[in-house]
C-alpha cells in the first residue's frame, strides 16, 4: 500500500513538473496552441485514475494533461503534440486540447465543453451490451455541469445502470467566471443523486481521499451498481488558458491565492506520507530527480522529432 501511495505522489509530481516546464517554455513560441494547465488539480486526475484497471476507459476535456499522464500516457508524445510534431499522441493534429493514448486507457479529450461526456456513456453502453467489466470515466469541470448534454447523459446512464463515473473537477471557475455567477447555491452531487446516480463529494486536493472515493464508486459501477458522480473540490493555480497566473487580474483576493497555494495537493501528500512514515526525505529527493529526468526526456523526445511537412489538404478525414 505504501509503494502505491508513493506512486500516487510520483504521478502528481510528474504532472506538476511537466506542466511547469510547459509553462516555462511556452513563451519560446514552439508550442503554438491554446494550453490549459492543471497545476493545483493533480490529485483529481491521479486519485481517480489510481482506482482504475486496464480495460477501463477515460475521457477528458480541454484541461486534460493530468488525466493523460495519470493513466500512464506517454509524456514525450504529449509534449510532441504541443510542439506540433507528427510523433505527438494525435499526430500533431490536436495539440494540448486533443489528447489520446488508447493503449493507456485514455480515449480522448476535446475542447468543446461537454463534448466528451456522452461519449463516455456510449463506451459504457457498449461495455454493458457486451457483458464486459470495464468502467468508463469522464472528467469535466464545474462549468461543464451547466451543459444540458451532461444531464441528458446522467439520465441515460442511470436509466441503463451503465458502468460510468462522472468525475467533476470543481475548481470554482469557468475561465474568469466564478461558480456563483453561473449556478445557484446548491450541491452538484445532489443534482446527480436526483438523476439517480450514486454520488459523493471529496476534497480534490487530497489524493488519498480521492482514490478512496473513486474506488468505492468505480468498484460499485464495475459490480453492476450503476453510474456514479464524484465531485472533487479543487484549485486552479494557473490562469485559465496559457502559462501564467491570473493573480494579477485581481479577480480574487490575494488571501485566496495564498490559501490555494497552502492547499497544494503535492505539499499535502508529501506531508501525509512523511507523517505516516510511508516515505522519507530521500524518497522525495529521488523522485524529484527521476521526474526531472522524465520531463527532460519528454522534451528531448519532442525536440528530436522532425518538424513534419505540411499535410496535404483534406487528408485523414475518412478511411480511404
Amino acid at each position, binding site marked *: 500500500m505504501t509503494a502505491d501511495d508513493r506512486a500516487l505522489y510520483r504521478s502528481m509530481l510528474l504532472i506538476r513538473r511537466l506542466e511547469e516546464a510547459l509553462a516555462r517554455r511556452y513563451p519560446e513560441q514552439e508550442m503554438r496552441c491554446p494550453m490549459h494547465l492543471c497545476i493545483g488539480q493533480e490529485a483529481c486526475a491521479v486519485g481517480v485514475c489510481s482506482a482504475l484497471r486496464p480495460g477501463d*476507459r477515460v475521457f477528458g476535456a480541454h484541461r486534460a494533461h493530468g488525466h493523460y499522464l495519470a493513466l500512464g500516457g506517454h509524456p514525450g508524445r504529449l509534449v510532441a503534440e504541443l510542439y506540433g510534431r507528427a510523433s*505527438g*499522441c*494525435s*499526430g*500533431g*493534429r*490536436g495539440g494540448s486540447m*486533443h489528447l*489520446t493514448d*488508447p493503449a493507456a486507457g485514455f*480515449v*480522448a479529450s*476535446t475542447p*468543446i465543453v461537454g*463534448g*466528451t*461526456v*456522452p*461519449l*463516455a*456513456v*456510449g*463506451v*459504457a*453502453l*457498449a*461495455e454493458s*451490451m457486451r457483458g464486459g467489466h470495464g468502467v*468508463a470515466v469522464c472528467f469535466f469541470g464545474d462549468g461543464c455541469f451547466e451543459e*444540458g*448534454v451532461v444531464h*441528458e*447523459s446522467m*439520465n*441515460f446512464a442511470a*436509466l441503463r445502470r451503465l458502468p460510468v463515473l462522472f468525475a467533476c473537477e470543481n475548481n470554482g471557475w469557468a475561465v474568469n467566471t466564478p461558480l456563483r455567477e453561473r449556478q445557484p447555491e446548491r450541491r452538484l452531487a445532489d443534482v446527480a443523486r436526483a438523476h439517480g446516480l450514486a454520488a459523493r463529494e471529496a476534497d480534490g486536493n487530497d489524493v488519498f481521499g480521492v482514490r478512496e472515493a473513486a474506488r468505492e464508486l468505480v468498484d460499485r459501477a464495475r459490480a453492476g451498481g450503476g453510474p456514479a458522480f464524484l465531485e472533487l473540490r479543487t484549485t486552479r493555480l494557473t490562469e485559465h488558458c496559457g502559462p501564467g497566473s491570473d493573480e494579477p487580474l485581481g479577480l480574487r483576493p490575494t488571501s485566496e491565492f495564498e490559501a490555494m497555494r497552502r492547499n497544494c495537493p503535492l505539499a499535502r501528500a508529501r506531508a501525509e506520507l512523511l507523517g505516516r512514515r510511508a516515505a522519507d526525505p530521500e524518497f522525495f529527493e529521488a523522485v524529484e530527480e527521476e521526474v526531472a529526468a522524465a520531463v527532460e526526456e519528454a522534451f528531448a523526445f519532442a525536440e528530436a522529432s522532425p518538424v513534419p511537412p505540411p499535410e496535404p489538404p*483534406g487528408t*485523414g*478525414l*475518412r*478511411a480511404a
Partner: protein
Amino acid sequence: MSRRSYANALAEALATAMERDPAVFVVGEGVPDPGAIFGTTRGLRERFGADRVQDMPISEGAMTGVAIGAALAGLRPVMVHQRMDFLLLALDQLLNNAAKWRYMFGGRFSVPLTVRAIVGRGWGQGPQHSQSLQALLAHVPGLEVVLPATPADARGMLLAAIEDPDPVVVVEHRWLYGLEEPIPTAPEALPLRGARIRRAGRDATLAAFSYMVVEALEVAERLSPLGIELEVVDLRCASSLDLPTLLGSVRRTRRLCVLDTAWTAFGVSAEVVAAVTEHALGALAAPPVRIGLPRGYPATSPHLSAGFYPTPETIAAAVLDLVGAADRSMRREALRRCRRRTPGDVPHASFSGPF
C-alpha cells in the same frame, strides 16, 4: 427479384445488417413502438431483442454522443430521427465530434455511425417538421450524406452506410416510403458514392436528389411524347458529388437543371451548379436552373402552402424555358400533361393523415 417498398427495403437493410454483424444496433425515439418509424423498424425487436433495438430518452444531443461513444468502442449504431429537424439538437455531436474524430486524433479511431434522418412534407408538417437539412451536413468535412431515391438504393445504401467505417447520414424523404419496385432478392450493399443515370435524354440534364428524382422522372416521362427528351441523373450522394457522370451528361445535353428537396439558396443545388460551371462552363448553352424550395416555410394550412413545393407542372415550366420550347400550344399541352390531380399536401390520394 422481389417487389419492395422503400420502407420495406429500409427494414430489410436493418435486419440484414443486424443478422450479419452482431455489433449493429438500432436506436431512436419510437424505434420499437408499433408505428415502427413508418414501418422501417417493424419486427426488429422481436427478432433481435430489446438490447439491439432500443428506444431512447428525448435527448438527441447526448444520445448522438452515446452512439459515437459506442461506435468508438467497436459497435455500429444506427440512430433514427423521425424528423430531420430534430437533428439540430444533435449537430454539436454530429459535426464537432463524429465528423472530426478520425481526423482530430491522427487517424487512430473510426466512428462507424449511421444516422437515418427523415424529411417530412405535407399534411401540415409546418416550419419545424419539414426541413431538409442536407446542406448543413454536406458542408462540414467528414460526414458522408446520402439520399437514396429508390427502394433498391434505400436498401443497398443503408447497408453500405452501416458497413462504412465512418459516419454516414442517410436522408430519407417521407414521400418515398410508399414507392415500390422489384429489386434483387438478396440484399447487398451498394456504393454510397456515384450518380446514376435513371433515364437517358438529349435535351437537358435534370440532376436530382432524393424525392426530386421521382418528380424529375415524372416530368421526363410526360414530356417525352412531345419530343422533349430529358436525361435524369440521380445524384444519390451530396457530400461527394459524382462530377464525371454529371459533367458527362451536361456535356451531352448542354443544359442543366438541378432539383433538390431543400431551400434553393445556399443549398446543395448551389454546389452542383457551381461545380458544373467551374468545370464545364463552355458546355452550357443556357444558364443552369435550380429547383427547390423558396426562401420561406410551408404554412401548415394546405391552402396557404399550395404554391410552396415544386410540382411536375412548375418543374416542366422551368424545363421548357431551359430547353427553349417556344411553341405556345405545345407548352400548354406539356403543362397540362404534368398537372397533378391529387391534393398537394399528401404523397398519394389515399393518404388520410395524420403523420
